[in-house]
């Protein structure tokens, strides 16, 4: 056997094993999520969440809403957050050194005055300039913190320091929350006796084209534009299948930064948000889990599949690319920071399943796909490609993808059924067919660019860090 042969075989088998494992995981996730979803829906069918709204001794929560240059919408967003059904809560708006008049607008609208407050630096942050509270009793739940600019993670850390309550809920200010969102999000913390629930994650759904009135989603519509629509499909797959299955395994590594609740004490003990990564939301969950594993404390990360939080998705390729680029860098940085857990039995499932899964199928997948594409081009240009085989394999993979998407749509219809018209489902299916051509290659390319940027050590903290949904939305206008 020649050495070329050996290398060729190595790649062939390698790719084969990888693909089979990947598809196997997808199949497993799809099947495994069903039971969990059914259980949750059945349980919800008779649960009276309002007890959490009306009873005296409920857990106290602090909602943390970091804001950077959100002057245009901040007043409305805060008003909407204040109308959330939950008695024992405070809303902490953190003005991350905005360059616009956000702070003054808040002071005027909510009749704020500066109050002396000692902020304990459980987590080291940029300095706090002042803390404001309202003189009007209607807004007693509101606390506004003004601080020096330091990025989203730093702003959230200030929030953690200022918060007085047992649980913190981190949200993006421009998210639209259902009014019972907090009741549902807090409940998992109360349901475990033998292990500690350290965090609860919620679903993020896409609000483009939805009818929004007075800061509330009045009517859910399928996005009109292709890009948000394909992301709708993507989110359904991720939240209804992926996270549900991972939650059943108690292996969730990510809670979306747009909407999640955390046990404040554990956040502090784990060291708070890391402001040296652009993926601070994922990194925090991984670090909290790692902390619990190292302390040998039984714990759980819970997940709520109800659509409770709505957000505007990027609707241009440029902004989408930037978002995915950032997500990729966040993932890699997180994996790098915690590489000690890679196949480390000391970390239980976290080290043996969750971490490797993210490494192989979230981090490596786009790279392998890109590499495969390049190899394909080379082979094709040398006339070495067996076209009939190539098309058979391509068709197979595409069909598998369609089946997976169809299954996700089916689950959505059977459970929350947000898109009720036949037309909507037809369009979602059509979107699934277009995805491999118009969306997937772009996402892969953005991920590859993220890798390249990271290798070039392109640091984009500070202002760039806030170029998430918020930035995306403004640019889209």
């Amino acid at each position, binding site marked *: 056997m020649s050495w070329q042969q050996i290398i060729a075989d190595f790649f062939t088998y390698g790719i084969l094993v990888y693909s089979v494992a990947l598809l196997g995981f997808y199949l497993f996730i799809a099947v495994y999520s069903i039971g969990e979803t059914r259980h949750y829906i059945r349980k919800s069918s008779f649960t009276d969440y*309002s007890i959490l*709204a009306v009873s*005296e001794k409920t857990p106290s929560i602090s909602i943390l809403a970091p804001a950077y240059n959100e002057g245009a919408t901040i007043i409305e967003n805060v008003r909407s957050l204040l*109308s959330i059904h939950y*008695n024992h809560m405070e809303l902490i708006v953190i003005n991350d050194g905005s360059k616009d008049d956000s702070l003054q607008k808040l002071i005027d609208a909510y009749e704020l005055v500066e109050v002396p407050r000692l902020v304990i630096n459980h987590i080291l942050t940029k300095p706090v300039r002042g803390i404001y509270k309202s003189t009007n*009793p*209607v807004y007693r739940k509101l606390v506004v913190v003004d601080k020096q600019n330091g990025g989203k993670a730093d702003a959230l850390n200030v929030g953690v320091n200022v918060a007085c309550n047992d649980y913190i809920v981190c949200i993006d200010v421009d998210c639209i929350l259902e009014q019972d969102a907090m009741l549902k999000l807090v409940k998992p913390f109360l349901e475990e006796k033998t292990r500690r629930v350290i965090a609860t994650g919620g679903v993020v759904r896409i609000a483009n084209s939805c009818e929004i009135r007075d800061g*509330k989603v009045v009517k859910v519509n399928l996005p009109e534009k292709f890009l948000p629509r394909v992301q709708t499909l993507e989110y359904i797959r991720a939240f209804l299948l992926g996270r549900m299955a991972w939650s059943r395994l108690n292996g969730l590594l990510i809670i979306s930064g747009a909407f999640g609740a955390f046990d404040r004490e554990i956040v502090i003990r784990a060291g708070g948000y890391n402001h040296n990564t652009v993926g601070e939301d994922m990194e925090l969950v991984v670090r909290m889990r790692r902390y619990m594993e190292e302390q040998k404390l039984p714990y759980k990360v819970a997940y709520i599949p109800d659509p409770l939080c709505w957000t505007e998705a990027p609707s241009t390729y440029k902004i989408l690319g930037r978002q995915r680029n950032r997500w990729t860098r966040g993932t890699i940085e997180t994996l790098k920071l915690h590489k000690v857990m890679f196949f480390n039995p000391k970390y239980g499932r976290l080290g043996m399943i969750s971490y490797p899964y993210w490494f192989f199928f979230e981090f490596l997948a786009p790279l392998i796909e890109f590499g495969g594409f390049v190899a394909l081009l080379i082979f094709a240009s040398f006339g070495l490609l067996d076209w009939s085989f190539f098309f058979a394999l391509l068709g197979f993979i595409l069909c598998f993808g369609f089946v997976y998407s169809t299954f996700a749509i089916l689950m959505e219809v059977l459970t929350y059924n947000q898109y009720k018209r036949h037309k909507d489902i037809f369009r979602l299916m059509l979107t699934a067919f277009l995805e491999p051509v118009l969306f997937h290659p772009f996402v892969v390319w953005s991920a590859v660019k993220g890798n390249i940027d990271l290798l070039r050590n392109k640091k984009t903290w500070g202002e760039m860090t806030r170029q998430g949904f918020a930035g995306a939305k403004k640019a889209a206008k």
Partner: protein
Amino acid sequence: MKILVAEDEPIMLKTIELRLKKDGHEVIVTDNGMDAMKQIDAELPDLIITDIMMPYSSGLEIIGKVRALGGKKIPIIVLSAMGQENVVLEAFNLGADDYITKPFSPNELSIRVKRLAQTA
């Protein structure tokens, strides 16, 4: 008397409506906070009965807004499942005239409405 009732549970809304009509009142109903504000501006009711946890805007906000309007003082009765002391106090501080905690008796509501109508 013209009474506006804001309550998001249809069955409760209907019951309150029927009970008050039995007493000979004119009743305007709405099932959300935003609509309630519009109706108050348009219909100028003599009395308002409102829930706290409603879609779009809370009953407390409605009290605040109505009291900020000035003019003739419209009596407001809060009807809510929230019985926590701080919520009740907040409602009164904002200018509510009465507070009834759910579960409640429609007959009691009727009497309280009568009482408020007399003093107003």
